[in-house]
């Protein structure tokens, strides 16, 4: 054998693969699917009102040059109930919040708003999740920051917790 180091090569390769496996186990798993629409213009859509007594939501309603939040929720979604008080806090801080109710019934949306409050200016009904698809949204709840330039500047996946409120206010200020 002229090159004895060659003997160790297979072992080195296997050790490398084993190392990769261990690394894979140690790194925390991130299964969130982020929208690729962040930084892009809000797509065009027009949705009917989600229940009686609220206004429907079209993309043109959000084009008044003010930064705002677009909340995606559903009455059947439990984390959406948990984030309701924090949306209320944001509203009290002067934030305009529009909403899209996903795969919902008008009567269920009414009960939800009765129970958990209605911090929303407008609520559109996305029965077939078509607008969710346009936004690159992968579930409920999700909250988008729409900048004054009409572009999506931030996507928050999951419920808004107390600690997220200052962060979202900051993102809104940045989106001016």
């Amino acid at each position: 054998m002229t090159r004895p180091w060659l003997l160790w090569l297979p072992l080195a390769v296997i050790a490398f693969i084993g190392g990769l496996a261990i690394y894979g186990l140690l790194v925390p798993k991130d299964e969130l699917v982020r929208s690729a629409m962040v930084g892009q213009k809000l797509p065009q859509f027009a949705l009917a009102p989600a229940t009686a007594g609220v206004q429907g939501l079209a993309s043109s309603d959000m084009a008044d040059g003010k930064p705002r939040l677009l909340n995606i929720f559903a009455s059947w979604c439990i984390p959406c109930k948990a984030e309701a008080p924090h949306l209320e806090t944001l509203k009290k801080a002067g934030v305009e919040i529009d909403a899209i109710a996903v795969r919902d019934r008008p009567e269920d949306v009414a009960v939800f708003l009765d129970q958990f409050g209605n911090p929303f200016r407008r609520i559109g009904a996305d029965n077939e999740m078509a607008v969710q698809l346009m936004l690159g949204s992968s579930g409920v709840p999700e909250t988008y920051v729409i900048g004054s330039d009409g572009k999506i500047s931030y996507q928050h996946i999951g419920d808004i917790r107390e600690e997220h409120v200052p962060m979202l206010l900051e993102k809104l200020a940045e989106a001016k």
Partner: protein
Amino acid sequence: MRQAFTILTLLVAAPVFAQGSGPIPELANQQLADPKKEAEATNLMHGLRCIQCQGQSIADSDAPMAATMRAEVRQQIAKGEKPETIRKWMIGRYGEWVSFEPEMKGSGLLLWAAPVLLLLVAVWMARGLFRRRA
């Protein structure tokens, strides 16, 4: 006792029903009239990943989001859109991740090139054998 327990657990298992109550789009589970176009659509559906159940393609998944994506694929194909354009549209929404066919750039390039590279390494390792026999 066991029956009562079963009923109780079924009642507790609310997440089973937590899928919402909206309608499923018509084209989600209905084939296109033109078999050629349907084949094109089905082929693409097998190559797109479901956002909700991640490991499955939208053709295999029963999740509402997959239904919406299937309907979108069929609508676009029926309109005469090319499958590659639709795949790009989906990638524009959810990133590279949504496609089961990685593109030939970045880390995807390494994936595509790996078989060729391994073959070259194998040939290089085996070259001594050929020499001895000749």
